[in-house]
């Protein structure tokens, strides 16, 4: 009963907002509608409306999927220090990381669905209902771990918020192990996604054992980059206060992750260019163009430039603590990793094709519209989740009269424990 009231409160919290909030929501809804229209056409006519063809059979959708799995996995960057090292400033905002993870996984699953040729047969993938090729198929693994990760995060978030709502302290014996379990699970979702590519000897560009570590490193850059921006926006639009210390700590960890990312990329590039086997063609296509096909070259170099510049910005304490350069660094990291893991990973794997054909893939407007809709849904989910979570974390919802009756006194005693109250 009280849980129903909790859900009701959540809805009411979602619907509270000023004109800026509603403009933001309407903008996202408009984008969703625009993309939904594109998706309906694709559902009717098939993936021929994309620019994917037999030669490049994965593209924009799968690239975004890969990138977003990384973002989802990156929530652990906040969880590890928060719960393992009991590092307070980060612990206070770890729940935001989990909200981001939930939104990112939702986007991942949507990107998988829009990429399917037969979305109406989605039930074939559902364990016990369909026929899952488990454990042989990495995509089957991916389905399982992604959904497990989604379920776990949803449970943790709902549980923590519900506890806050009814004003009791969460059960450490229950939440603690679950939160700790989400750490290996987060690593595993990205590892499995890397293995999905990695396990294909037919595609030498992906068939490198360094791929999974690279995935994790770049994820530990891109996810927190989004978080840092989100922290600042929330700090200015809500009563949530996040200590700068937490942000700087995250930025420092990002610098290390970016160093590793660049190092692993360098190792891969060295191996390919120095040994210069037939497999080099894919790297050539990415970095210098191949037989006149060079539409990716400028983006791959831009990605490297973004990564290097942001690495420097985050490494130097002065620029890390200056919010202008910090934000610039975040956006550069985001750009760099998005290019590297999105189109820069998927397309060169297929170009030149196995039979030596060069088909330059670029997404169609239809694909971009659908992708935009998926991102908008993810942003909407995240916005709503924040809208619910932040007032609960700050205890603000009580003053608005939305609290569980009778929890007032108990709530005051514990409200400050999981969150910062200024």
């Amino acid at each position, binding site marked *: 009963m009280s849980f129903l009231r909790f859900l009701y409160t959540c809805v009411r919290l979602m619907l509270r907002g000023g004109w800026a909030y509603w403009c933001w929501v309407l903008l996202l809804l408009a984008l969703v509608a625009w993309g939904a229209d594109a998706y309906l056409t694709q559902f009717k006519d098939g993936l021929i409306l994309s620019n994917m063809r037999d*030669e490049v059979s994965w593209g924009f959708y799968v690239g975004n999927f890969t990138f977003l799995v990384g973002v989802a996995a990156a929530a652990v960057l906040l969880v590890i220090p928060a719960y393992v090292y009991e590092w307070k400033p980060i612990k206070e905002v770890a729940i935001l990381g989990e909200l981001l993870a939930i939104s990112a996984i939702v986007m991942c699953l949507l990107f998988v669905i829009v990429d399917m040729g037969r979305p109406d047969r989605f039930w074939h993938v559902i364990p016990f209902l369909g026929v899952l090729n488990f454990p042989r198929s990495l995509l089957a693994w991916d389905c399982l771990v992604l959904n497990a990760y989604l379920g776990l995060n949803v449970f943790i978030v709902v549980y923590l918020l519900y506890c806050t709502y009814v004003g009791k302290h969460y059960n450490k014996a229950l939440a603690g192990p679950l939160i700790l379990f989400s750490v290996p699970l987060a690593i595993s979702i990205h590892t499995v996604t890397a293995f999905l590519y990695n396990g294909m000897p037919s595609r030498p560009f992906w068939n490198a054992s360094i791929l999974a570590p690279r995935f994790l490193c770049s994820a530990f850059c891109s996810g927190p980059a989004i978080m840092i921006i989100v922290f*600042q926006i929330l700090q200015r639009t809500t009563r949530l206060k996040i*200590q700068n210390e937490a942000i700087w700590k995250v930025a420092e960890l990002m610098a290390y992750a970016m160093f590793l990312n660049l190092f692993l990329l360098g190792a891969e590039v060295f191996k390919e260019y120095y040994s210069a086997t037939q497999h080099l063609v894919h790297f050539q296509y990415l970095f210098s163009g191949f037989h006149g096909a060079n539409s990716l070259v400028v*983006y791959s170099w831009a990605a490297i430039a973004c990564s290097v510049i942001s690495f420097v910005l985050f490494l130097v304490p002065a620029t890390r603590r200056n*919010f202008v350069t910090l934000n610039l660094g975040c956006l550069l990291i985001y750009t760099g990793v998005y290019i590297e893991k999105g189109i820069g990973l998927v397309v060169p794997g297929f170009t030149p094709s196995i039979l030596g*054909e060069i088909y*330059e893939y*670029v*997404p169609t*407007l239809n694909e971009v519209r659908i992708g935009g809709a998926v991102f908008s849904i993810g942003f909407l989910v995240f916005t709503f989740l924040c809208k619910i979570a932040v007032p609960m974390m700050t205890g603000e919802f009580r003053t608005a009269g939305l609290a569980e009756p009778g929890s007032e006194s108990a709530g005051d005693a514990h409200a400050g424990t999981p969150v910062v109250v200024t």
Partner: protein
Amino acid sequence: MSEPTTAPTPENNEHMLPEATTLAVLLILFFAIGILALASIMMGRPEAEGAAADAAVAHGPAEFESILGEDFTLGLDTASKERGHFAVPPPPFSKGIYPCSECHGDLEPDDTRRKLEDEHQEIKLEHGGEERWCLDCHDFKNRDKLRLANGTLIPFEESYRLCGQCHGDKYRDWRAGVHGKRTGYWNGAKRYLLCAHCHSPHSPKFKPLHPLPPPIKPQYIRK
């Protein structure tokens, strides 16, 4: 990074406000550049070569006599599906030329090597150079037969025996089904083509073909 920092106070917050503007500017710039980049990728696609370009059109099998005309269901004599049995289609005679005896029966045979001027001028012997001429294969007396080196007369349907005299390796491969075209049943009766079906005996080099058109290139596949 462990030095203690001052906790954010309202003053600090005031101080940070201009950074909110820079964040907004940065975000707007970021999205603007992103949209521009996406747009430029989508526009800059090198595909506007038009229908005149190579492999821009899809062709179907129904357009080609050689495909549509081929009868995949062969009227093979399935009564003899036994391994080792092979049927050959009739030899590829020029129209109305066989039986040879219709003309040659009344002619006095002449075994002097010469250039043919009255009949068969179209035959240009490009098989083995100067050493070869008509009566190496055709029988001097019975023109409806071919003649092996040992004097045995064979019908045109068994011409492979004649070819096999010189091309022993090909003959061996042909019998095993490795050389030449085989149709019918992989586990039963087969139809073998004679050497002469593919190689004109007088000019055996395989004649070039006009290829069927290339598949459509992926960039031209559109709804």
